[in-house]
């Protein structure tokens, strides 16, 4: 169960980080003119790492073949959720993203 939580939380947090690394979505969330600045590289790195973590969790949770299917499905769901949050709740986006990151971290601790 914590593994499945990790799959979804990590892919959501990962996509949120990747979107915040882009100027357009940084403006959506933090207002016109804001850029991720020096954070850009870290957001990209962290987002990629979270997506990799989600892959690892999927393979652990569902095995070597079905795990890939689970991962791709979770990525699709998480990316759709990210787009929905960016256009629907832009001002709470960073809180939800942080919460997803927190859940991912906790479930990782639980798994290890």
């Amino acid at each position: 169960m914590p593994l499945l939580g990790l799959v979804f939380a990590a892919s959501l947090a990962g996509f949120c980080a990747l979107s915040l690394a882009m100027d357009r979505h940084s403006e959506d969330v933090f207002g016109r003119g804001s850029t991720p600045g020096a954070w850009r590289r870290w957001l990209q790195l962290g987002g990629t790492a979270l997506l990799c973590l989600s892959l690892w969790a999927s393979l652990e949770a569902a095995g070597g073949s079905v795990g890939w299917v689970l991962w791709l499905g979770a990525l699709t769901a998480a990316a759709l959720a990210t787009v929905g949050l960016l256009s629907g709740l832009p001002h709470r986006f960073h809180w939800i993203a942080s919460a997803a990151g927190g859940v991912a971290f906790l479930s990782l601790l639980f798994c290890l």
Partner: protein
Amino acid sequence: MKDGFRQSMAWLHTWSGLLVGWVLFMVFAAGTASYFKDEITFWMKPELHAISHGSVAQAVAAENAAAYLNRNAGNAARWFITLPTAREPAVGVLSIKPPPPAGSPPAERRRGFDRAALDPATGQAITAPRETRGGEFFYRLHFDLHYMPALWARWIVGFCAMFMLVAIVSGIVTHKRIFKDFFTFRPKKGQRSWLDAHNVTAVLALPYHAMITYTGLVTLMFMYMPWGPQVAYKAHGGTDTFFAEAIPGGLRTQIKPSGTKAALAPLAPMVAQATAHWDGAPVGRIVVHQPNDANAVVSITRAEGRHLSYEQPSMQFNGTTGALIGTFGDVPKAAAETRGVLYGLHIGRFADPLLRALFFVSGLAGCLMVATGLLLWAVKERQKYAKALKQGGRIGFGLRLVDGLNLGAIAGLPVAMAAFFWANRLLPVDVVGRNEAEIRWFFIVWGATAVLGLLRPTLRMWQAQLALGALLFALLPVLNAFTGPAALTVSLRSGPSSVAGFDLVAIALGLGLAGAAWLVERKRRKALAAPRKAVKPPPPTELTASAAAGQGS
């Protein structure tokens, strides 16, 4: 050169998508529903909801089924026994009658099989659940269509799927900014919003769309491209030999009766031996060829588990002695395994409920991708008439046709699907030909929405049909509460959980459709408030993706 290529791909994408879009929308919607076809069928048989099936050992369930079949179909040519699973608590049995003697009346020949659902614990037939095709209807609809020979339908659907594959590849080429626009959705911006919605639903579920279209073609590849085996096996007995060699132990095995009676050996030891051979994996299906004949053969197939491949290993036993004849498919050949995995990915029967839900979400994204693509064509085309419309002119025939078909296909299909469920619960239980009556209601309602859409492709009509679909879906749990024993309040607490799941998904789809109807209303108000120069209200240009969220199945 590069621009030229991209532009020609844009042309290809537009037309390959538009021409088959309406069929594709139906195929996507019905196919998406098919992920839950067992649950849909179960919901549509409320007589089964109150029966609680404790878990029964597989060997016991198999013996009970064999006893039932011995009593009721002792002289059948073949028995099929499908053992219960978490998704399907009853034992399914089907017996095929022996071929009638030559010269018998044709009425006797037509109905060649008997089907029943048994309680696994007692082996008694479950008293007359209502006749319904259930989820099987949507499953068949998505590649066999209806009211036409299945073979034609499969060619039509295959043709559309091929166009879909072309549209996917050309769409990827056309879309210049896949990664820059990865998360981009800008609502309330007219054509821009439509394009964003189309891109987001297409790109974010791209692995699914490419997989499902390609594997869909693979499932029927021996029909679309039969020439390989035909040529290779020309001198060796034709394609039947090919299938027997490529997929040994399959259903195509034909056993001739000897004519000598012999009692069938007990099934329980065979089930136990098979399960032990597969490291404890449960048995899925038992086929008894020529039961109670000296030549009887029992073929046992493993249940679908967490294996991608559709082909499951099987074991064959001598039906009179119970001795093992052989094991098949334990180490599948690479080519057969490749096809099995591609096939298995398409039908997704390996998936647990969570993974199934993810497939469902991706399928809904596919419906939205097709729907937004169709609407985008109309929105773009309408701009060419903007000037003429301002002067009170009319739009062209092509655009009017597309508008009407869009309405009937996109807003009408959910109404028809919901009507199918309503018909299931409201038609009298004992009416003759109930299966077909439910299906007729589906097509009557769909036909009506399509005709109305073609006659009046207006915003009002969009709104009316979306709202009707929303109402019909959202009220399904209420209907269930009045016509079945497992209302949502009961099923949420004590099961069956698949009925609760159906009701909740119906509410969610209803809310999605209601959201779409609400957005059309906003658009219509805006059009009314604007200076009323145009004689006709302009049709929709600004449903957003979230609005369309319920337009799927």
